[in-house]
């Protein structure tokens, strides 16, 4: 166990870390969602649009028992997976971009099942794409880095900057910078079991947005932020809870990310689950946690 240390006063801790049962529920939803994304990805064919792919993933997850959403599925094809030329805030919404042979793509979905939320990012390509493969390989080092830095008690801002430095050394652009709030991660709140109350036009679930707004307000008072970015509001030691981490790297028009839940307790941090497609893929390819082969 590592004790978190920092020269700044620790922010007031919010709520309890989820119980073991709750963690199991979150893990199950995360598994369910990655499975659905992998299955839908396997059915994608040339000519399909982002909208069609996102809708297929939504149908599949709703059939699997999803009853609410943090956000509906997104799909990004080709250079849209690197958020290239994104200037306006809503450009991440699915478009009629068609998938082509050899194109990389990302499926990103955040469904809720009985109050437990997953937020996943699944990167793949239609047919071989060495560039996508390479960026995915190099993401392994980021997964290891994030958990190491949090365990060392670094502030969220410092973790963000460490990821930035690693990406720059690898030669990649930081594309999570293009996310709303420029976040590399965000808090995931356990919700009451029960149906959702609708979706905003920007594809985010209303119940989750309300919960997030409340947490932001609490965070303001307690000097921490549920939106994990590189700015001053994130310059606080780790805050216990569930955090969906989504490092997103870009190499010109090639983009890749993973997204999964990091569990931060008062004195430790660990990924919720290691049995995920990207982790299995790294193992198969002989990539160690540090990213070296």
């Amino acid at each position, binding site marked *: 166990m590592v004790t978190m240390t920092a020269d700044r006063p620790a922010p007031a801790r919010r709520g309890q870390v989820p119980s073991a049962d709750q963690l199991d529920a979150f893990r199950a939803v995360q598994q369910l969602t990655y499975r659905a994304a992998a299955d839908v990805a396997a059915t994608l064919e040339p000519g399909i649009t982002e909208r069609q792919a996102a809708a297929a993933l939504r149908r599949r997850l709703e059939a699997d028992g999803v009853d609410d959403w943090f956000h509906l599925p997104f799909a990004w094809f080709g250079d849209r997976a690197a958020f290239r030329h994104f200037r306006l805030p809503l450009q991440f919404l699915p478009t009629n971009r068609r998938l082509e042979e050899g194109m990389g793509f990302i499926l990103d979905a955040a469904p809720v099942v009985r109050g437990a939320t997953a937020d996943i990012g699944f990167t793949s390509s239609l047919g071989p794409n060495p560039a996508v493969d390479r960026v995915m390989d190099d993401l392994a080092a980021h997964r290891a880095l994030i958990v190491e830095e949090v365990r060392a008690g670094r502030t969220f801002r410092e973790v963000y900057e460490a990821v930035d430095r690693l990406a720059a050394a690898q030669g990649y652009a930081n594309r999570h910078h293009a996310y709303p709030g420029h976040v590399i991660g965000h808090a995931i709140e356990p919700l009451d079991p029960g149906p959702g109350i609708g979706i905003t036009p920007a594809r985010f679930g209303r119940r989750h947005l309300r919960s997030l707004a409340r947490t932001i307000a609490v965070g303001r008072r307690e*000097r921490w932020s549920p939106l994990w970015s590189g700015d001053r509001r994130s310059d606080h030691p780790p805050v216990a809870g569930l955090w969906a981490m989504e490092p997103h790297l870009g190499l010109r028009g090639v983009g890749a990310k993973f997204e999964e839940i990091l569990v931060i307790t008062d004195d430790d941090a660990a990924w919720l689950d290691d049995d995920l497609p990207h982790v299995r893929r790294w193992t198969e390819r002989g990539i160690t946690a540090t990213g070296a082969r």
Partner: protein
Amino acid sequence: MSAAAVRERRVAGFGGLPLAVQERGDAAAPTLVLVHGYPDDHAVWDLVADRLAADHHVVTYDVRGAGASGVPDDRAGYRLEALVADLGAVVDAVSPDQPVHLVAHDWGSIQSWSAVTDPVVGRRFASFTSMSGPGLDHVAAWIRAHRIPGAGRWRAARRQAVRSWYIAAFRTPFAPKVWRRGRLARSWPLVVSRAEGAEVDARWPGPDLVANGANGVELYRANMHGRTAPKVPPTTGIPVQLVVPVGDRYVTPALLDGMERVAPNLVRREVGGGHWIPRSKPDLVARLVAEHVAAVEADRAPEPAPDRDVVVVTGAGSGIGRSVCLAFAERGSHVIATDLRAETAERTAELCRLLGGTAQSHALDVTDGAAFDALAAAVAAEHGAPSIVVNNAGLGMAGRFLDTTDEDWDLLLDVNLRGVIRGARAFGRLMVDEGRVGHIVNVASAAAFTPSRTLPAYATSKAAVLMLTECLRAELADDAIGVSAICPGFVDTGIATATRYVGATADEQDERRRAADRMYKRRRVTPDAVADAVLRAVDRDRPIVPVAAEARLGLLAQRFAPHLRRAIARIDLTPPTRPRPAEGSPS
């Protein structure tokens, strides 16, 4: 270059007109016939012929009406049919058994196109190297096609029409008189040497210039008007090398578009230089001819013109340099990534290959002149001259002038200024010698035109780079090499984390670096934006490309608000060494 021995002889041309023929080199070697243009005579080829004589049987002759050849009695004697027959007679005389390699310039090239597409005379040629002279049938078809508006055709036609002013002038009765009056002939050597960079000597433009100019007007009068071009121009199957000097004042490169319809087996080579490249770039012309002839003699297909850019980038291991490499790789260029640290350069090369380009990496210290020359030699041996050079490597330095030591200055200027000088010189020389049409990009900074008490050394080094760029741009314009300065503002490249703060303790140094880096990150201008600016500079040949709003504003302030600029210069931009307390703290 020592002059080769010249053997003079006379050959009877069409209608028995005597033609003065000069031969150099071993008559058993492959025969080259060099045909001159207007208002030249055979002497225009002297420099090229001397260079080729060692390995070839080089033949030049004076076209009818020029030099020591006979002058036809009437205009009909200048018609293409006569010129083609003359060429056939010369070929039969100097190489009765073997086909010859034809090399022609200007009007010589015009008549040679008629010769190589002629059903009888055409069989006498093994290859053709054409400079600055399209076939007249092709020109007629080109003008017909360019009557249709769209795709920039009217603009191309207008550009060519402006450059063809002399053809209209030659229809007036004054044209020969102007030559005979003598003033034009007296100033001609100055015109061609100053405006064209051509090497003049006693034999070119020689004593016959007035007669060449006055008689040669008949070439235009006899052939350019009232001619009915065939609907389907005759073609030739021999290997043709079309050498296109992009700075030609008389024949625009666009006029030579579509020559492959006349000669399907055609390689087009665009080179830097003006109309008289046989006199301004004899080494280049001789090399291109020799290579083409060697390929044809060995029954090889001539080397195709390079279809992609070879790009050399310094400081390619991180930041802007790496992004520039990736941007070029994405277009399919061949990238040569160099950096002080070999492993970061290799990483860049690896990423370039992932993006579909080809790439190689070299360790290079830009302060090491010998290493630069060695790299240039290695690149030249493998790829020839690069088409694009990006001098990007640079250091950051901040702090008071009075705290900046001599050693600080030496290091900074050695990298930021002399590094650019070394790169531009080593590769610029290669590019000029090989006639490579290309671009040199120097990465300067918005600091180059934005004075600041915070960056005296850095801004000075970058201002020098900017001025160097402008001077070099003027010098290399005639060689069709563009030179651009990229002036980025605050770009998140990691330069902030490596900037040296003079007069600061180690702790202050770290803290300032971190604060500056965060400020740069907040600006959110990425190296990719600079890379896109580099592509823009190359594609549109822009002299100065500012990147980010502060750079554009700085450029405006320099022009329109120098007082404001001086006031801003007095603001100390050194990042504070104490982080400010977080906003929204509970009171």
